[in-house]
């Protein structure tokens, strides 16, 4: 298996706060890597460093062997890394279709408007939003907005997809639906790095998991190894619900 993404000793600070502290890991082509950790651990910030929203103070990020540290986000998308936002950011006054066309046209394949429309239709079908194509994005409900986030990212035809809590706030039916979509994406050969609080979902989906706490990586391994790691349990103690669900995953 070849390495698609390499995060190499990355540190990101906000004033005195070290949000990401000297984090390194590798991501292999075709795998699903879960990224977990308590609230405020620095997961989203790490995503922001990878896709160019922030430039890390230290360290490098290599994508397919190329150094992409500090590239602006729009260049990172072109290279084939797309992402979803934890807090959904639909383009409210544009239709669902137009939202996805933006993703397609400005994504990795740099499509024309007509080609972009075709791709967008396909992707909407794929995530199950096709019947909403002409609705204004601002009018969707939360679950639909999450799927729209997903659709826009997919329309960019990425090699690597960064998913930031796509399951948060969904009811069990919606979760099942979303998980189905994620599996299908993986079947298409897209590599996935996903942040998730919903333990049973990450444990089920991920090939490997890394754990952040206070900005540092405290564990890495298979779901089973991570769930049995005392350091991880300790990190989650501040959050009893999560700790419990983590323990429940132990088998």
């Amino acid at each position, binding site marked *: 298996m070849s390495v698609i993404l390499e995060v190499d000793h990355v540190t990101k600070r906000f004033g005195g706060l070290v949000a990401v502290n000297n984090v390194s890991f590798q991501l292999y082509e075709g795998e699903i890597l879960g990224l977990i950790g308590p609230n405020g651990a620095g997961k989203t910030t790490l995503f922001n460093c990878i896709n160019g929203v922030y430039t890390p103070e230290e360290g490098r990020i290599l994508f397919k062997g190329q150094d992409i540290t500090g590239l602006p986000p729009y*260049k990172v998308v072109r290279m084939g890394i797309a992402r979803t936002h934890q807090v959904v*950011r639909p*383009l409210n*006054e*544009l239709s669902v279709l137009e939202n996805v066309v*933006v993703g397609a*046209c*400005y994504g990795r394949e740099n499509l024309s408007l007509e080609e972009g429309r075709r791709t967008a239709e396909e992707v909407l079908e794929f995530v199950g939003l096709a019947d909403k194509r002409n609705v204004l994005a601002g009018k969707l409900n939360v679950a639909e907005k999450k799927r729209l986030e997903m659709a826009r990212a997919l329309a960019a035809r990425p090699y690597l997809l960064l998913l930031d809590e796509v399951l948060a706030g969904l009811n069990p039916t919606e979760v099942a639906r979303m998980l189905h979509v994620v599996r299908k994406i993986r079947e298409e050969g897209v590599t996935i790095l996903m942040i998730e609080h919903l333990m049973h979902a990450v444990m089920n989906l991920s090939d490997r998991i890394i754990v952040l706490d206070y900005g540092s990586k405290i564990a890495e391994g298979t779901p089973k190894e991570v769930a049995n790691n005392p350091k991880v349990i300790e990190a989650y103690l501040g959050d009893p619900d999560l700790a419990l669900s983590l323990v429940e995953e132990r088998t």
Partner: protein
Amino acid sequence: MMRYVRDPALWLTTLVVLVAGVWPLITRSATTREDMFLILMFVTLASSLNIVLGYTGYVNFGHIVFFGLGGYIGFYLIAEKGWHVIPAALAASLGVVLFAAILGGIILRLRGAYFALATIGVNEAVRSFIVNWDAVGGAVGMEMNFSRYQDYGGPMNALWFAYILLLIVTLASVLLSYFVRTSKFGLGLLAIREDEDAALVLGIPAPKAKTIAFALSAIFPAIVGTLFFFKNGNIEPGDAFRLHMSVEGIVMIMLGGYGTVMGPVVGAATYERLRGFLLTSPLFKNLQLAFAGVLLLLIIIFVPSGVVGWLRNRFPKVRRILA
């Protein structure tokens, strides 16, 4: 290409401007021409401003600086250097687009109210600079020798000539607005308007796109400035950089429909006609400004998407013909 030829919205837009604009040429009435000159001028100013304001979502209070600077460059070349009005207008446009590209590259980093305030500052800085610059006449401005009009077959012909040029420019400016709105580039601008950070993450090179939009919005105001002051025969800083005119442009866009192609056209025409009516009506003559204010307030509160926007939302069927 075929996509455009078949688009009824394109034809409707072109037709509206053309029919209205040709009217004075048929009636040969100088008063109609003068009325229409102002309307077309505002259609151009509003349409071009809409690219930045309506598509990209940046509130530019200094749009008129393009008109004023263009007017100064063009007028100077005509009055002092003896240029023909066409090359003078083109040179003015080129100069102003360059100015806009550089300025845009610098101030489009600002967002929201900060950008809006900076554009006011730029307009005022340029105006007060011109007031102090004696080479272009300082506070009194410049006058054109009447004999200049002889090159065009006398003053009467020169005015008709300027009008025809303006009609062409207006058409071009509305078409530019249409093509931007329906292009991939325009879709990127709309995304920036909705959420610039999300747009960046979706792959839109926002800094470049914004600057291009800003520069595009400067092309035609500069030409209109040259034509307007050529027609008037004089130019002064107060007329060229009237902050109030920028705001009127925004009002027209809001009235017609923010972010649509037809909106600024409808808005500019309505606003100008309304003002003409208020100015001549004995009842409202003195109150025209207040009246326009009340109208604006009512629109913002009750029909924020403007006439065209409202039609498009209310009757989805008309979307096909009303871009």
